[in-house]
């Protein structure tokens, strides 16, 4: 471990509540009919947009190239990171390395405090949320203004994003109107709940903050090692303002955001916009290399974060998850996500990709993290749409194996493990097995009504909570086989 962990001091984020297991968290979401309607509408509309424009003829070739480029980035990550640092530094930027969330918070807080600013503007950064930056800034008396519309809605609502690219997918217009009336200065009381009017109110509110801002904090989609260039895709234009108006720019990115060469963007800039929103190109793509005299910020800081990524990298199967470019296509097609929404997956990374990223970055020791690899039906729709060909079901199954392995080492075995051990013992011997089969059949037929078992006893009852079990036939296959003339 590094000296940094556990000494967060003033940069400590508020202690998060223990997150519930996926199934528990999902139950609340499933009971909320408004949430389910909003999510169904959102995912359907995102899928529709994705299908609206025809796939280019070379889509499969682009995906193959994308997969290889991201693999190259990961398998040579140490060399690429050193090359990136050299290039950014040569172009007048400063690179900071954060081993964990606490260290990243401390670095950013020190950078903001050095400018004397009491307020920062923020544009889409999943890493900022991952490290709990807003809480740390607030604790130090610094106001963080979210500038993307959906992030503003989430901030005003005091909850968590529910989608990677549309963080407010769980809210409808009427709810957003309520939040704006309470939270936006100067929002007229007769504000209608139609989208254009709400966007107008947010534009007016945010514009003042932009014009006065001295420090901006953003994320980045790609970091080009060869040239030291950071790349950011967005559709609203808030990030463009963050990148150009303030004096100081702090960009947060996970170490896996590196891509080897400038020419690799020709693949990624075609894959990401289409997978994210069914567009040939995202409305705005910005790229910058260090600082440019007379254009934009005078100081540029790049904070590179590990926070569990090297842990995922160490898993030969699981490291494929680090290829992810955060397009969110897997969320939009996932039948589980469509019903539960993003909150059930715990903080930051929702949907199928979150179910494989979060347990790898944080380990599978806690019940919540260990439940994520099971938050899937393994239908495989996510793997079909992934622009960098991450085989999400394969990684899910692999991680389920790891969860079971980690439980095997516990001093007290789980009921499931005891049952499996008993089953192994029974099935290990033909006579034992047949005796158990006969007895089991008799009991099961006693429990059944009209050929179906509605409730199994004890822990097995969980299985029949949502379905009936057919009663076994009076005679087993083995008995019938023996009786055959």
């Amino acid at each position, binding site marked *: 471990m590094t000296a940094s962990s556990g000494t967060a001091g003033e940069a400590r984020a508020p202690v998060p509540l223990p997150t519930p297991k996926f199934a528990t968290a999902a139950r609340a979401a499933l009971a909320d009919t408004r949430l389910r309607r909003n999510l169904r509408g959102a995912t359907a509309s995102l899928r529709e947009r994705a299908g609206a424009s025809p796939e280019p003829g070379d889509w499969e070739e682009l995906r193959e190239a994308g997969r290889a480029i991201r693999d190259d980035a990961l398998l040579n990550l140490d060399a690429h990171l050193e090359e990136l640092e050299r290039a950014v530094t040569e172009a007048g930027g400063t690179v900071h390395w954060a081993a964990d969330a606490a260290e990243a918070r401390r670095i950013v807080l020190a950078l903001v405090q050095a400018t004397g600013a009491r307020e920062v503007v923020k544009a889409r950064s999943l890493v900022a949320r991952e490290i709990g930056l807003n809480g740390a800034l607030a604790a130090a008396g610094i106001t963080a203004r979210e500038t993307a519309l959906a992030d503003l809605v989430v901030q005003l609502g005091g909850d968590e994003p529910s989608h990677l690219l549309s963080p407010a997918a769980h809210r409808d217009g009427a709810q957003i109107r309520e939040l704006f009336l309470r939270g936006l200065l100067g929002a007229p009381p007769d504000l209608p709940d139609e989208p254009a009017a709400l966007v107008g109110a947010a534009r007016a509110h945010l514009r003042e903050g932009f014009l006065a801002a001295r420090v901006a904090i953003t994320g980045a989609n790609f970091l080009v090692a060869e040239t030291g260039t950071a790349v950011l895709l967005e559709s609203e234009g*808030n990030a463009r303002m963050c990148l150009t108006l303030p004096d100081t720019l702090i960009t947060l990115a996970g170490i896996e955001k590196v891509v080897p060469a400038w020419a690799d963007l020709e693949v990624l800039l075609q894959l990401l916009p289409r997978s994210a929103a069914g567009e040939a190109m995202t409305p705005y793509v910005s790229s910058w290399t260090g600082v440019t005299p007379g254009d934009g910020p005078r100081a540029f800081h790049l904070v590179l974060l590990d926070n569990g990524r090297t842990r995922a990298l160490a898993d030969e199967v699981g490291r494929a998850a680090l290829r992810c470019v955060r397009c969110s296509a897997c969320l939009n097609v996932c039948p589980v996500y469509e019903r539960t929404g993003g909150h059930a997956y715990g903080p930051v990374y929702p949907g199928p990709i979150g179910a494989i990223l979060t347990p790898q970055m944080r380990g599978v020791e806690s019940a919540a993290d260990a439940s994520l690899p099971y938050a899937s039906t393994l239908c495989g729709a996510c793997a079909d749409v992934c622009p960098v060909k991450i085989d999400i079901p394969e990684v899910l199954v692999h991680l389920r194996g790891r969860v079971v392995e980690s439980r095997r080492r516990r001093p007290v075995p789980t009921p499931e493990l005891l049952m499996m051990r008993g089953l192994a013992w029974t099935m290990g011997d033909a006579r034992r097995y047949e005796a158990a089969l006969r007895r089991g059949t008799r009991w099961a037929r006693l429990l059944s009504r009209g050929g179906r078992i509605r409730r199994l006893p004890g822990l097995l009852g969980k299985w029949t909570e949502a379905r009936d079990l057919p009663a076994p036939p009076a005679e087993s296959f083995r008995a019938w086989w023996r009786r055959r003339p």
Partner: protein
Amino acid sequence: MSGESGAGSREEILRRVREALGGARGARPPVPRGYARRLPEAEAETRADVLALFTERVADRRAAVRHVSADELATAVAAALWGREAAQIAVPADLPYGWLADLDGVRALADAPALDTETLAACDGVVTGCAAAVALTGTVVLDGGRAQGRRALTAVPGYHLCVVHADQIVGTVPEALGRLDPSRPLTWISGPSTTHDIGMARVEGVHGPRHLEVLVVED
């Protein structure tokens, strides 16, 4: 300042990366580059086909687009600004003088010395050139070079009029990247500022320009 604040973890992170990769480290998976670098022949037989595709795709992005000849440019710029009832606009200091020759009743503020942010926000629009344009995606790319100015000029005002010379238009994203210099700050613009974040309805003009207009100059 704090250039050293993360120095301690630099070695630690690199060590973790090397340890995590183990024997796999340093493998260079070959990148299969079988994707299209240029437009397919059928779509781009002639230069005119590429221009037509660009025009179509810009319009698809809900930006206004018109073709003009070089001697009509000044009139077209003036007409576009009148159409928007612009009273005051910002322009890069090195915008060719001829582009604004026909302006009447529109105040053009040159960005030299740099306009302060309030003045910029009070402008009704901005007129620039571009560094390259991509037909397939309907994109104009600005790199801060000639007639483009610094990035803030086009990020703040509500209307952006972009002049594209026909020879700046390429077919695809790979072709455009080959023309661009990564050391310059780049902005790829495809249509006006957009959001879908309220009830998934498309709304234009959240922060950046609400309206984008493109004039293609054919020589």
